[in-house]
């Protein structure tokens, strides 16, 4: 399948391990995934008031550029990017006034002539044609978890992993529509196809504190602790997720958790694409284990997945 790839800002700096492992896994699975040649920030949060129409422009520009590249769908692994792109697209499809105003902005888009003399900017109205798919959706709907399971070269047998969804992947369900918002199963099915043992725990879709970790760090520490403690109590040896911000709250924040909760024991956190790349036997240089705050390599060595 041919699909455009939108990595998003965090993947190019703080979590290059998510970017690298996604690209390597896609290559191993023969997905024709090409990064958009030009992209901007997606805006990170969907505009929540009716007046903030300008905050929809970056998403719509990205989606319109996907079409310019000749593709009809775009994929991303960051839960925030997925949420904003998908919701902005739905806003344009559902609301004729927003659609009209977005197109008025796109029409004014011009390449900067000093840098780009040759390109003639050809305006084409955007009416929500681009499909936004999370990388997990490609694995589930295009490849299929059964096929994936057959393509795995190194089964991660005996690794007990707690799947963590967080908020942006699932909610609001009528706009995001990836899985059931209260009882999702896509990460569980994914983990089983890699051979992992799935750890069920009640806080898999509870918020980790999100970007409150900047303005109210203690609230994020408490929220992350609630989630990790529950995962550990249910027997998890590791946690997996897809959002770079959840990763920051769950991985880096374990230092703060240890200061507040003495009985807490640390647990490694993986991006789902790292486990995927590991199971597909991809070269280890893409994993970026050194980027992790809680080093996952001792666990992987103990299980025999790393030498």
């Amino acid at each position, binding site marked *: 399948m041919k699909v455009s790839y939108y990595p*998003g*800002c*965090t993947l190019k*700096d*703080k*979590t290059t391990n998510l970017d690298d492992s996604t690209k390597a896994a896609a290559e191993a699975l023969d997905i024709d995934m090409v990064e958009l040649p030009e992209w901007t*920030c997606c*805006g*990170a*949060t969907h505009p*929540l*008031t*009716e*007046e903030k129409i300008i*905050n929809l422009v970056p998403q719509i520009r990205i989606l319109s550029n996907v079409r310019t590249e000749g593709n009809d769908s775009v994929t991303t692994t*960051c839960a*925030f*990017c997925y949420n904003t792109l998908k919701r902005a697209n739905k806003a344009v499809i559902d609301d004729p006034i927003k659609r009209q105003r977005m197109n008025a902005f796109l029409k004014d888009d011009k390449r900067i002539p000093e840098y780009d003399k040759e390109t003639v900017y050809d305006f084409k109205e955007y009416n929500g044609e681009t499909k936004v798919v999370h990388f997990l959706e490609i694995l589930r709907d295009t490849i299929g978890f059964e096929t994936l399971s057959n393509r795995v070269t190194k089964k991660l047998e005996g690794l007990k992993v707690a799947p963590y969804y*967080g*908020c*942006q992947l699932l*909610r*609001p*369900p009528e706009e995001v529509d990836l899985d059931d*918002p209260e009882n999702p199963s896509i990460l569980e099915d994914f983990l089983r196809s890699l051979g992992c043992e799935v750890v069920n725990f009640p806080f898999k879709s*509870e*918020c980790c*504190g*999100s*970007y*409150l*970790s*900047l*303005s*109210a*760090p*203690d*609230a994020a520490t*408490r*929220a992350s602790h*609630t989630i990790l403690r529950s995962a550990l109590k249910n027997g998890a040896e590791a946690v997996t997720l897809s959002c*770079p*911000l959840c*990763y*920051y709250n769950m991985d*880096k924040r374990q230092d703060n958790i240890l200061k507040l909760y003495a009985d807490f024991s640390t647990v490694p956190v993986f991006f789902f694409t790292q486990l995927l790349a590991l199971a597909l036997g991809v070269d280890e240089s893409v994993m970026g284990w050194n980027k992790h705050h809680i080093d996952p390599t001792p666990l992987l060595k103990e299980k025999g997945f790393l030498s």
Partner: protein
Amino acid sequence: MRAVISTRQVRSEFVARVQDLSGQDLLGCYQCGKCSAGCPMTEEMDIIPSQVIRLSQLGQEEDVLNCKTIWLCATCYQCGTRCPKGIDFSKIAEALRYLGMGKEKEVCGPNHIPTEIIAEAPQQALVSTFRKQGL
């Protein structure tokens, strides 16, 4: 909490403004409390989300614009997902932050975030936080 409720406040422009900005049926809320029950941040809040809605319905502008609650919303959308009336509290909180902004209040702007956190935080968190402040 002692509150003076007058018809002037209940019928004030404030109630209509919150409804317009948020696009939510503020007066449709019948106080079941599901939003507060599911909210992961109530522990840190001074008043809970359903109370913010009730006070807004009654035009208690001062109380809701000055509460901590609207700044502690992490926009996880748990409240709106579970609301039987389809009201998204995160949108009401955003409308209230927006209405209070003229008061030059900076709760989560660049000056309020410790520099060591700015250095290590993911970019998406910085963008989201500054957007919350209306930057």
